[in-house]
């Protein structure tokens, strides 16, 4: 779903200084960059599956952003929880994986050794496993 085109004036980029209305509960933004998010994508998919599904079903009913703010807050809070858990338990291996991704144009196939270390740590400490849906039978690509 597209959001908006930026208001680029001659003087510069127009910045909206107003914040959200006080009636809407505040939630911290996730704030992570692309590499950490990419490496935790599958764990987020399995850990926060319920909230993501609620949010997507709500979006299917209506494109109005106001209708799905509540489910969106739950998704964001779940993501932040997962990031904190990962930082607490598997910070070193996670950092190793996403720093490798940063150097390799976010290509997952270039960082298999670090990914193996990280996935093992997460499976051990948090019990989350990386599963690629709709993959054909046989060894999955990330385990070859």
């Amino acid at each position, binding site marked *: *779903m597209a*959001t*908006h085109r930026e*208001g680029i*004036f*001659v*003087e*510069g*980029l*127009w*910045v*909206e*200084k*107003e*914040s*959200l*209305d006080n009636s*809407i509960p505040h*939630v911290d*933004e*996730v704030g992570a960059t692309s590499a950490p*998010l*990419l490496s935790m*994508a*599958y764990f*987020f*998919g399995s850990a926060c599956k319920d*909230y*993501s599904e609620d*949010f*997507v079903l709500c*979006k299917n009913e*209506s*494109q*109005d*952003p*106001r*209708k*799905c*703010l509540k*489910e*969106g*807050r739950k*998704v*964001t809070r779940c*993501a932040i929880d997962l990031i904190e858990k990962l930082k607490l338990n598997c910070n070193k291996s996670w950092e190793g994986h996403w720093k490798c991704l940063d150097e390799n144009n976010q290509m*997952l*196939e270039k960082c298999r050794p670090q990914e193996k270390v990280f996935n093992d740590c997460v499976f051990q400490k948090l019990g989350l496993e990386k599963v*690629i*849906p*709709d*993959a*054909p039978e046989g060894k*999955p*690509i*990330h385990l070859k």
Partner: protein
Amino acid sequence: MAGQDSAPAGGFPTTIKYKRNLPTRGPSGAVLLLVAGAAMTYGLVKTTENTRERREIKREKTWARIHLAPIFQAEADRDMVRRMDAIAKREAEIMKDHPEWAANDLKAPVKGLGKGGVLDENAAEPVYHTERYVAPTTVFLPPTNESFLDAQWWRGTKLFTKNPAYHDRKDFTKEHPIGE
């Protein structure tokens, strides 16, 4: 016959080579075809293997993006609500003397708009009649905002952001560009 160009009596000297020499050597045609076929088969097998591997890599990346999409959509939703509320607030501020004005609402009745989009002084129809959400295609951003982010932030430079034909015209003022 007289005048025919033929060998002298007894034949040419044996030291002169006059017969052509085209020995049949090297692989036969069948072998060549087999080798070419083998090379093509090998190449095709390797290509299909590589294609399947690339498809699986693409599948992995796509599913990672699918799993992450709700995070970004939720953030974008909050941002859109923030911006739309701010725009409605500014509009209501400007139109505070007109209580019947509905700010930033595409489903509010518009005075003078009749059925079929005709001008009708007595009628008041909304722009959109649907129950679905309609996002505004254009919104007004006041150009007198102090919080502009410098062009060099995303563009790399502030050069060539000024248009002299527009900005250096005699009747250009900051408050009311190009005359009153």
